[in-house]
């Protein structure tokens, strides 16, 4: 009899403990993609890949989880670092005992040297041009890495952090698998390790029990490819996924935030929508016409249109919050009458017609149609030719569009945005082309001088002057900034406050867990 009671008691205790035992340890993520692409951090530059790879790799340094500003840099694999006064020599002291995934052994300076050289090599890296200033990378001893630069650069730490080429790969695994093999079975040192890839369905990661910050609380991550927005929404509501990338629409935010059990978060870095004006083509070669366009665009109106909670007005030709952004730049104010008067002065009293090739992506197209309506009020007709997104990217680089709407976020240092969009070296259809669609070249001297300037105050002043010159010349009209949007179940505790993420997805750390 007593035995039966004991047994009954034990069973009751087990049943009571049931919910605690059943606490979720698998995180299911929904990503808007058909496939995450090559799973090599030095080759993958797409949003779906970056968010995922971020959970597997570390840098020598990192930006604190949940932040996107370079002034939040903290140690990652390196525990400390020093630099020479001229900023050309950097020495990093690595942590001891950091382990490579899949029993790949300890991560040492040899791995760090291999990784940085791999990132700088154009055959193995998409980001090799970021490392053009690297002269040599050496292993001083097992735990010390020395980087020597040809010339000082605005942010060396940005090149060795857990972002793009700065992600540290393990030499043994990378050499054994080769470039193609590594992209299918990546090995880093991060909190989660690659376990399985199923085409068109998911990538599975498992917790790294030897992670140097401690074993992750989650055991598994299933990273599902769900390209349909509607299907992702429904799967989140049905509890089949826990975390998902959202739509950049105010209506989506309002609807999802009202759904019980779900949270929506908007974070940076924001993608800035800029209207680039090709200054080599008439009538845009006339500054009065460009000024008229700038006066005709109403940034406040566009922000209302795109959604006040998910977008903000542009403040300069560099997005707000970047290191070096001119937060109070003298952008031309909205004034339709002034725009009309300027057009008349320029010799176009009856208005002008401009041509733009534009992507069919709905979010970007909605923005462009709103701008088209605003320009119309000032007598500026914008003829939009809609083309598919890859076609758009090819044709704007062939200098085929008079007006280019480009929406992008970059590494948050003014130099990157200014160089890629406004330096003469980046003018489209040149051998060194990047994305200078306006053919702007008024601020080359300041951009170049700022890049090697070691005095931070002087550097910022140079960037400020560059932005003022570009705005005065109206190479482009910055309009609006769109935040990244993700939604997750309210029982998911990310383990930090999410304000930003350079890798465009929320970091999943050793502290991320389900509360119930």
């Amino acid at each position: 009899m007593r035995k039966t009671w004991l047994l009954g008691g034990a069973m009751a205790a087990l049943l009571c403990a049931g919910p605690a035992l059943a606490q979720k340890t698998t995180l299911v993520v929904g990503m808007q993609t058909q496939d995450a692409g090559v799973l090599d951090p030095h080759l993958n530059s797409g949003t779906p890949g970056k968010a995922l790879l971020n959970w597997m790799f570390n840098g020598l340094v990192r930006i604190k989880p949940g932040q996107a500003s370079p002034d939040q840099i903290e140690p990652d694999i390196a525990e400390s670092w020093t630099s020479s006064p001229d900023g050309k020599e950097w020495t990093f002291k690595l942590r001891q005992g950091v382990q490579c995934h899949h029993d790949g052994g300890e991560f040492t300076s040899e791995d760090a040297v291999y990784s940085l050289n791999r990132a700088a090599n154009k055959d193995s890296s998409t980001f090799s041009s970021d490392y053009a200033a690297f002269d040599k990378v050496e292993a001083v001893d097992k735990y010390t890495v020395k980087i020597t630069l040809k010339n000082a650069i605005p942010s060396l730490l940005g090149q060795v952090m857990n972002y793009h080429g700065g992600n540290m790969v393990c030499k043994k695994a990378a050499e054994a698998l080769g470039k193609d093999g590594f992209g299918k079975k990546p090995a880093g040192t991060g909190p989660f390790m690659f376990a399985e890839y199923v085409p068109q369905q998911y990538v599975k990661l498992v917790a790294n029990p030897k992670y140097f910050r401690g074993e992750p609380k989650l055991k598994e991550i299933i990273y599902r490819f769900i390209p349909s927005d509607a299907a992702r929404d429904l799967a989140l509501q049905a509890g089949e996924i826990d975390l998902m990338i959202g739509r950049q629409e105010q209506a989506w935010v309002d609807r999802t935030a009202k759904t019980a059990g779900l949270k929506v978060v908007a974070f940076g870095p924001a993608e800035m929508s800029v209207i680039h004006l090709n200054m080599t083509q008439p009538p845009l070669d006339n500054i009065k016409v460009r000024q008229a366009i700038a006066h005709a665009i109403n940034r406040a109106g566009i922000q209302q249109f795109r959604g006040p909670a998910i977008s903000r007005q542009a403040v300069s030709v560099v997005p707000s919050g970047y290191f070096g952004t001119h937060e109070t730049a003298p952008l031309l104010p909205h004034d339709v009458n002034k725009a009309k008067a300027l057009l008349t002065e320029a010799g176009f009293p009856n208005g002008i017609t401009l041509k733009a090739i534009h992507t069919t992506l709905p979010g970007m197209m909605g923005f462009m149609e709103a701008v088209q309506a605003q320009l119309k009020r000032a007598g500026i007709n914008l003829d939009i030719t809609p083309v598919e997104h890859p076609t758009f990217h090819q044709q704007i680089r062939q200098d085929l569009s008079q007006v280019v709407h480009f929406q992008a976020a970059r590494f948050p240092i003014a130099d990157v945005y200014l160089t890629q969009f406004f330096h003469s070296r980046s003018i489209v259809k040149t051998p060194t082309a990047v994305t200078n669609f306006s053919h702007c070249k008024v601020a080359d001297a300041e951009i170049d001088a700022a890049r090697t300037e070691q005095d931070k105050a002087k550097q910022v002043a140079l960037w400020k002057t560059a932005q003022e010159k570009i705005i005065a010349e109206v190479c482009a009209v910055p309009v609006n900034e769109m935040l990244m949007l993700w939604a997750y179940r309210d029982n998911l505790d990310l383990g930090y406050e999410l304000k930003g993420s350079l890798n465009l997805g929320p970091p999943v750390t050793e502290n991320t867990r389900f509360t119930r």
Partner: protein
Amino acid sequence: MGAFLVKRLMFAVVTLFAVLTLVFIVVRIVPGDPALVILGDQADAQAIAALQKRLGIDRPLFEQYVSFLAGALRGDWGTSLVTGRPVLVEVMAVLPWTLELTAVSLVLGAVIGVPLGAWAAINRNRMPDYFTRILSLIGLSFPPFVSAILLLIGFALALRWFPVISSNRGTPWEWFQSIALPAVNLGLIMAAYITRVTRSAMLEVMQEDYVRTARAKGVPWRVIVWRHALRNALIPVVTIVGLYLSILIGNSVLTEIVFNRPGLGKLIIGALSQRDYMMLQGMMVIYTLIVVVVNMLTDIVYAVVDPRVKLA
């Protein structure tokens, strides 16, 4: 039968060769650079040129064409430009999913469509006929992605009978759960087609002399309908099913995306948006093969259903 098959196979080879050439040209005419898509919007001109070289897409078109044909003959469809995995491996990984969905939808369509069409025909211009015609019209005019979302809202979200992500396999129950909604979504469209074709074919057959003779000599009505009329009415139905199979595969693209089911449709959309030439080429050939094989099978089934057709 043997001579017939050889003749059809020769036609199939010529068709395939023509499609290979056409696909090779078409995927390259479409603007958009795979290197740019892979590298992302920050890539500079030098990086793009380097990747084009690595991918081999900077070579003269004729050289690319020859190596593509040579590879195809050896059964090597190349490597996906985006994922770096062999095209054949990627296609074979998802092909069973598409075939399974198509087959189940087809069976569902036939099981619903044939009796409904026959029922409508023998009740011509009466309530069952009106009801069936309206129903099939709705089925035909409903875009598959809309019906898919409605099915998900109703059965996956409100009733929780089925999962939203239909990609589970394992136990027969899990398999059933994951195929049920996508198959119903496609099957209903197929049923709508089959209902209409069966109805009109039945109406035509019912007016034939032999049906009147059968009725005159007192053959029971049920026997006339099922044995004499329906069997003959099924001949055009088989043709339509064969023809619509390719439409079904097309519709499966949208169904696969909304139900998040792996399949050729999803693969082809991804390859198209990323300008993955290699993958597109491989996929097109697979699609062509399916259409060719289905047409051949239709011809063979024709002979089985209609003894008057000789395979010579």
